[in-house]
């Protein structure tokens, strides 16, 4: 800390400290703590606050277990997010490998620039693009019926399938980049050596490249799972009342049910789920937090 003042002097050092303190304390830590506190309190009328009913309770958490519909949606959200994560990993691995190992250098940089373009585009617009593609009278149905795969158009926007396709598309690049960074740091000589010793490509991927890419796989999976489980935009646009997402239930507690305490409890459960997933991945792939955000 004294180093900060020695380097930048008192006025500047104090200003920096205050700005960072505002961020960390007022914008990040206190709101989280209050949200958790809020989630353990009952939803009261203003006149009842501070009264005998104003005591900590687990009731908001019991709601999730007691409400079959909400609980089913919660489980569905976890399972679907896990599938989205796995699909994204499978789709992106070959691309990341191609970029990092086969291309390298300026060619990789050029292809990367091309891949980044959709990533710069608003998530809502990318999702909207899929809304058009998947629509009942849309081009995908026209194509599938046209070539005879389907007898009549399908309602893609009526189930979880459309939501998951949209999510894989929306969060692809959060997987490609960590994978690319991890594979790129692999010494090609290791792969050459494995090949010279007669290993097949499948074996090389399994025993050399994937173990080396672990931190990248962990980072990519964490990002995609977190984005998928926490997504509000994609299910709102590509889903229907039949394919509600947990975030939509949370939103409804706030702005339709008018029970913020209940909503806070659900939000905290979602947060715990994501934190749990992060720690599970860190243990599974044996990587530290520092390696994750690099």
């Amino acid at each position: 800390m004294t180093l900060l003042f020695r380097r930048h002097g008192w006025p500047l050092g104090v200003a920096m400290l205050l700005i960072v303190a505002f961020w960390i304390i007022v914008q990040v830590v206190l709101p989280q703590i209050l949200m958790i506190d809020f989630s353990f309190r009952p939803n009261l009328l203003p006149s009842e606050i501070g009264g005998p009913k104003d005591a900590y309770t687990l009731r908001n958490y019991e709601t999730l277990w007691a409400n079959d519909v909400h609980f089913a949606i919660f489980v569905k959200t976890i399972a679907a997010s896990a599938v989205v994560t796995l699909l994204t990993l499978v789709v992106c691995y070959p691309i990341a490998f191609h970029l990092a190992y086969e291309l390298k250098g300026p060619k990789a940089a050029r292809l990367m620039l091309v891949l980044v373009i959709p990533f710069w585009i608003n998530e809502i617009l990318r999702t909207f693009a899929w809304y058009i593609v998947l629509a009942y009278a849309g081009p995908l149905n026209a194509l599938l019926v046209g070539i005879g795969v389907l007898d009549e158009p399908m309602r893609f926007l009526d189930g979880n399938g459309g939501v998951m396709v949209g999510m894989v598309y929306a969060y692809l690049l959060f997987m490609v980049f960590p994978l690319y960074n991890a594979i790129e740091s692999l010494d090609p000589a290791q792969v050459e050596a494995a090949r010279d010793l007669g290993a097949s490509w499948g074996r090389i991927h399994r025993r050399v490249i994937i173990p080396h890419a672990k931190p990248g796989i962990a980072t990519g999976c964490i990002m995609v799972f977190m984005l998928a489980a926490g997504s509000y935009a994609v299910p709102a646009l590509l889903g229907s009342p039949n394919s509600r997402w947990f975030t939509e239930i949370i939103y409804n507690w706030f702005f339709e049910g008018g029970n913020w305490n209940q909503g806070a409890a659900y939000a905290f459960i979602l947060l715990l789920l994501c934190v749990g997933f992060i720690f599970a991945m860190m243990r599974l792939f044996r990587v530290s937090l520092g390696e994750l955000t690099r």
Partner: protein
Amino acid sequence: MNNRTSPLMRAYLLVFLLYLFLPLLIMGLATFNDSRFPTITPWNAFTLKWFDALFADGKMWEALWSSFVIGLGVVVLAVPTGVSAALLLQSVHRRTRTVLYGVMVSPLLTPGVIIGISTLIFWRERFGIGGGPLLTIIAQASFISGYVMLMVAARLERFDRTLEEAALDLGATQGTVFRRITLPYLAPSLIAAAFLAFLQSFENYNTTMFVRGVDTTLTVYIASKVRTGVTPAVNALGLILIGLTILGALFHELRRRKASPA
């Protein structure tokens, strides 16, 4: 592509690129189709009327203005925060740094809806401030500052701090050193971070939904259009935004290459 690339990989790459760009192309094309609903099947007739419909839409302009103001607010709040955070991290002990770093990147690993919810509850309960542009700026900046911190910290890592020490030894005040050495060195990353912060704010939906109050940003406007009766005017807006984004991305990329010739 070199001889290490198998035909299978080439085919996969092609499919992947089609997957990435075909939906965007279809969305763009649908702008010019004379149809009540945005689609390219069936193709009716070429029209530019949806651009006129878009420009005549007063709500769209209000939403655009709102997004613009919020984006600027986020840049003003998040860039100084991120810079201070990166400089602070460099000046603390290793253990403190690890903890502080963890707290600073935690908003990046938190779902956006939760950032929105916690911000909304905190400001309403403690200060009686409900949703609106101000709260949107505060909520968005709480995670965008993290991105800025990472970008500035990455550049700071390659900074030769002896330059600062030399200037101090030669009698420069710390303020002068900051203004004449540190800031100019960080400038490219500051511009890039400001650009990214604005874009992140502009496209944000998940956090904004909870803290916006009755304010409608452009992203919220587009989403509500899609949900309540969409016309190809939304495609026209999308096409314009994509055009601007690609121009911006190219500009950003060129700057980045000039800044670090690697």
